[in-house]
């Protein structure tokens, strides 16, 4: 298999990439290519032009800046797996992204922009309250992940904007996170996955909570109602069970080859509980 014909531009700077993107319809950025190239081979994507950003210097920074974990547009999943800076749900999810070979090329920012509801990172970013930084001809803008994820394969970027980094807030106090994923085999999409993030106040009560679901709705779903149940409570089995029940109700799973909707909803219930318990244990030990 090979993709349909397209024009190819290897950009050397972000400005060059944005300019190249703006000049044609159906132009796509090529970062890791681990979703885009398979989609082009099956003609699910037929871009007229690809703007390769892999040769742009300084986009592969993974660093702590001003209380955020800054993940540049060319940071590969494997870099995050190996990084000491990854924390909570980020560190928990990274080794579960696809398989080792895909992780060597695929990028967090590419996955985030792709907005596939079966993708893992957007749930993690929704749970941790991250921002997406986009650059266009008129400069930079910071988009909250809740606004960035619009719909199935649809993000909030304008045609001439490029994701240059993701910023994940690094909690200053006691915090923990977890990503619980069920997959049939390494490299398969999630059957169900749940991201959880908890922060505790001085009394040990939950001061901030994030819960988001993968592969059980048309988009990665942040469960605000579950977060409201958690905030203000002391961490514990009863409140986790209550939040898990809310998450299970918020899921809209579909019957497919991976399982029935009823069964997936139950997995959401169990995995939310487990993710919250793991997040709390990590926060209490931190």
């Amino acid at each position, binding site marked *: *298999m*090979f*993709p*349909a*014909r*397209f*024009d*190819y531009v*290897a950009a050397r700077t972000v400005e060059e990439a944005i300019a190249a993107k703006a000049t044609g319809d159906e132009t796509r950025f*090529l970062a890791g*290519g*681990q979703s885009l*190239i*398979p989609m*082009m*081979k*099956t003609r699910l994507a037929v871009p007229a032009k*690809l703007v*390769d950003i*892999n040769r742009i210097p300084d986009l592969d920074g993974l660093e702590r800046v001003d209380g955020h974990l800054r993940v540049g547009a060319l940071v590969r999943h494997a870099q995050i797996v190996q990084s000491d800076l990854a924390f909570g749900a980020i560190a928990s999810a990274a080794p579960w992204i*696809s*398989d*080792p*070979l*895909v992780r*060597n*090329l695929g990028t967090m920012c590419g996955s985030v922009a792709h907005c596939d509801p079966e993708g893992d990172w957007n749930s993690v970013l929704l749970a941790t309250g991250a921002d997406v930084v986009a650059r266009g001809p008129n400069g930079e803008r910071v988009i909250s992940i809740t606004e960035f994820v619009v719909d199935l394969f649809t993000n909030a970027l304008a045609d001439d904007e490029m994701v240059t980094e993701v910023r994940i807030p690094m909690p200053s106090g006691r915090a923990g996170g977890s990503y619980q994923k069920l997959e049939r085999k*390494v*490299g398969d999409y999630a059957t169900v996955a749940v991201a959880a993030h908890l922060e505790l106040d001085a009394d040990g009560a939950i001061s901030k909570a994030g819960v988001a679901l993968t592969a059980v709705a048309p988009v990665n779903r942040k469960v605000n109602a579950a977060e409201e149940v958690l905030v203000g409570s002391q961490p514990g089995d009863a409140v986790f069970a209550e939040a898990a029940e809310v998450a299970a109700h918020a899921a809209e799973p579909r019957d497919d080859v991976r399982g029935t909707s009823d069964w997936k909803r139950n997995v959401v219930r169990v995995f939310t509980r487990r993710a919250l318990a793991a997040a709390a244990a990590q926060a209490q030990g931190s």
Partner: protein
Amino acid sequence: MQITVSVNGSEHTHDVEPRLLLVDFIRTRAALTGTHIGCDTTSCGACTVLLDGTPVKSCTVLAVQADGRAVMTVEGLDSHAGGPAIKAAFKEHHGLQCGFCTPAMMLVAAALLEEHPDPSDDDVRWAISGNICRCTGYMNIVTAIRAAAAVPAAS
């Protein structure tokens, strides 16, 4: 467009369409057929090559992305520090049955041993988890890679 890719140390310059996949460049332009096309859907890992030393699925990389970069295929494995030991260990421990996944498995092993000279079973299983053996001969593949690790690398 014209690209030059170093394959196992030899430079290959060809005029290619941007849509040519790296695996097809290797098989049809560099005429090295040890790199296999299995699923062609980024699932099986049979097309694994080392791109600047990192294992990647060459069916999911455009040849133009490899312009100016170095590719190692199974045919170049002897020039890799751990290569000869890996090949000998796969033979000794029956680390292959039909052989289709073997070039990829050995390249992943080479990259693993460079980073982890003494991997555990778990390390090896983790490293090869993106590579499918349809004969399900994983036990002997793991044994072979660990045996290769026990051989001092040629310097």
